[in-house]
């Protein structure tokens, strides 16, 4: 399992790899995987060469996740074989893949939130003292060393859940690396990271690369792929489309292979689905003033006009999501007023906000959006139930009509309206949620990361839809960590920092350098906070208490 072993394994020629380049360290040969009703992978071959960073791309439903799950022992292939080095292997459990040196970092952090950072890193292989008990001092020391290597300054004794998502991701990475992996699989590791944390991640990836560890890198962000990856494999609808050097492939060509569309079409529309600016009306439809909530929001005010897209910029933890939640009545406020069409809302609850015409598409699709066990139909009509019923009895006919309209308009791909939402791809789940809100005919639509974790095709569709909606006179608030999306999609951008408004970009100033300039201001005065990621408040008072508990 030591790095040297990886080199040994790699030096043995593997018969089935393509002729040029280093031999494959991990290989899938014509693997297939079927799930009830779908063929997720159809005779797909994939070869990871020793020491390379290999991008794996494709739309949702292309089979990336399934391929990763085959490589890491979560699923077993129905056909074809896996080869590790030059020998065929079959993993019955993820643990066996880990033992063979394949570590995985999943899109959603996969750790134990209530345990300490150090325990998470060493879970299942804790250092023991001579009594066979866990050697906490040693574990904490080693964990601290590991984390420092990744530029994370967090106390390893703190419970994991008190850290920001980005920092948790680093802990997951530290865990993966410390098990002496020779292959690390990363499934969208940056989707919840701040730009600064992404830099740290890339530095760590560079280090792993230097040690000869092969990396499978899955991401929707093309910038990242071109920055760090050597080769790329493109999948589409369970088929293998292309494998080759990434450098020899321009972006348009890559996107068109992923989408299966003509290059000319992609180019005409640009890489995002947004059109030009919108004509906004003068009178605001929504006014929020003095929104204050503990340390999270401090006197935030904003105006939204019909027909405009207002971008909400800021780093992770700057109060973007909280602002949206406050406006939607889903965050308890210490103070502030929200009025729609000049009328102040008396009670700030989600139900009251919805009645006033405010709809929020939440950031966390799984936890706060979909009801996975219910059908597409029921998820769409969820918020509209009272409107679709008479005397408490729901009309099935009216439901079906609405569902039909929105499934067509948003091009929701499901086997039928009765399919469970949990079975759909991320992009389609997001469209279902958009349909849930649009069928209420809102005046104000708050979109928190509407395109996060969805495939390129659906992303463009959602962006185009946002555009259409604004054109139809809806007021849209857009939150996005994707700077390109924020800039191209917004008519105006309000920048938040530390829970307060830091600046506003209008007209020609809505561009990347201006936004970065406002954002960059922050790094000067708040570097200390930044290392802890999105952790709320200061960490100092908690720390003295933590060690005692852990030593027990």
């Amino acid at each position, binding site marked *: 399992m030591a790095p040297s072993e990886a080199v040994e394994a790699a030096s043995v020629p593997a018969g089935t790899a393509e002729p040029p380049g280093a031999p494959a360290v991990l290989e899938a040969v014509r693997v297939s995987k079927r799930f*009830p009703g779908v063929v997720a992978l159809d005779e797909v071959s994939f070869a990871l060469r020793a020491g390379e960073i290999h991008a794996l791309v494709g739309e949702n439903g292309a089979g990336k996740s399934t391929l990763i799950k085959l490589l890491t022992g979560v699923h077993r292939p129905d056909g074809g074989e896996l080869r590790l080095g030059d020998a065929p292997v079959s993993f019955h459990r993820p643990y066996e893949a880990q033992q063979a040196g394949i570590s995985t970092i999943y899109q959603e952090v996969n750790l134990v939130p209530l345990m300490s950072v150090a325990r998470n890193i060493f879970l299942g292989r804790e250092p023991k003292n001579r009594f066979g008990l866990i050697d906490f001092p040693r574990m904490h020391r080693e964990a601290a060393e590991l984390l420092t290597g990744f530029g994370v300054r967090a106390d390893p004794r703190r419970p994991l859940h008190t850290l920001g998502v980005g920092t948790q991701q680093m802990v997951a990475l530290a865990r993966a690396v410390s098990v002496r992996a020779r292959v690390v699989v990363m499934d969208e590791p940056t989707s919840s990271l701040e730009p600064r944390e992404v830099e740290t991640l890339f530095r760590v990836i560079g280090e792993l690369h230097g040690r000869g560890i092969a990396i499978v890198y899955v991401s929707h962000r093309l910038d990242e792929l071109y920055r760090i990856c050597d080769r790329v494999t493109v999948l589409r609808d369970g088929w293998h489309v292309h494998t080759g050097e990434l450098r020899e492939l321009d972006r348009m060509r890559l996107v068109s292979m992923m989408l299966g569309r003509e290059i000319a079409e992609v180019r005409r529309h640009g890489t995002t689905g947004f059109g030009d600016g919108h004509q906004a009306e003068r009178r605001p439809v929504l006014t929020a003033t003095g929104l204050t909530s503990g340390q999270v929001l401090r006197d935030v005010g904003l105006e939204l006009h019909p027909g405009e897209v207002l971008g909400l910029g800021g780093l992770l933890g700057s109060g973007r999501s909280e602002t949206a939640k406050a406006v939607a009545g*889903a965050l308890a406020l210490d103070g502030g007023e929200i009025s729609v069409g000049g009328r102040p809302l008396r009670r700030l609850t989600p139900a009251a*906000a919805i*009645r006033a015409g405010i709809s929020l598409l*939440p950031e966390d699709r799984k936890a706060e959006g979909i009801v996975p066990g219910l059908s597409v139909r029921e998820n769409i009509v969820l918020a509209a139930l009272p409107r679709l019923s008479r005397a408490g009895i729901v009309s099935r006919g009216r439901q079906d009509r609405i569902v039909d309209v929105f499934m067509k308009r948003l091009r929701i791909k499901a086997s039928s309206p009765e399919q469970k939402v949990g079975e759909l791809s991320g992009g389609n789940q997001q469209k279902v949620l958009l349909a*849930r809100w649009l069928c209420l005919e809102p005046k104000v639509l708050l979109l928190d990361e509407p395109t996060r974790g969805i495939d390129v095709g659906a992303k463009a569709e959602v962006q185009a839809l946002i555009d259409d909606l604004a054109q139809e006179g809806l007021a849209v608030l857009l939150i996005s960590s994707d700077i390109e999306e924020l800039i191209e999609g917004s008519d105006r951008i309000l920048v938040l920092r530390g829970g307060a408004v830091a600046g506003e970009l209008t007209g020609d100033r809505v561009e990347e350098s201006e936004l970065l300039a406002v954002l960059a201001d922050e790094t000067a005065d708040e570097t200390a906070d930044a290392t802890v990621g999105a952790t709320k408040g200061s960490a100092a008072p908690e720390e003295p208490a933590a060690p005692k508990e852990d030593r027990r």
Partner: protein
Amino acid sequence: MTDVPITLSARGLDRSRVTGLLQRYGVYGAVAALLVFNAVFTDHFLTVGNLRTQLVQVSPIVIVALGMALVIGTEGVDLSVGSTMALASALLPLYLGYGLAPALLLALFAGVVVGLVNGSLVALVGLQPIVATLALFVGGRGLALVIADGQLKQIQNRDLLGLGTDSLLGIPLVVLIAGVLAIVIAFLVQRTTFGRQLVAVGGNRAAAALAGLPVKRVLIGVYVVCGVLAALAGVLATARLTASDPSALGNLMELSAITAVVVGGTPLTGGSVRVLGTVTGALLMQLLHATLVTHNLHDSTAQMAQAAIILVAVYVARERRSR
């Protein structure tokens, strides 16, 4: 024994399909298999008289289980149903002097109050359902004993006794009531705003709240419905027994009800309510017990067989989810 017909017809399908089918139709298949078994091996089992007895005996469990299924659909559980039955039973004799209607209304009202307390503890205070309803599980029966002065009271009221013994068109009233309630609850779950919101609250509470659903109202309503159904079951059981016996009536009923719900395929994780499955689940446990007892197996053996069925049901449900 229970799976044979299904596994045979499903041979060649993959494993997850089989467990899926089992979870959806296993309980119906099991009841059918039991009936076939008894038709062949048990004398005088498939007679009108016996089936009638079985149905009358299972009816109170079905009624309580219907309410329990709703509560479990919201990711909750109601342990106080047995005590609610005792409470309703203890209240009955107090007002029977004014006639059946006032006494019945008072008993059902007790169910409403129990439901309001349980629902408020869960929805407003935010207690775990198992802890919140444990309070009235203990306290409810205590209150019932205080009301009844710890004594068993014979029931003389003809109207009330009629509830337990009369028949309409040859069907015992108790069975008829349970059947009608099952249809009402199925309609409630499938077709009403309340029912759909209930399932959504159980499936993902945070999402339901953000979608503007009246989460607290739905939760309280669910516990109230469960309380009223338990109180009604208490009244019917009292009528069958021809006596109000708050110290014994409804003992272990919460477990029978939960068993029926689980065996019927409603997941304990919420987000789904299977009404017909629940009714069939109660029927399965009843028939299984009756079958074993008529074959001269001891009561304790029957209990172990029931335990095995529960394990199978939970195992099948688990298989399905981990797919």
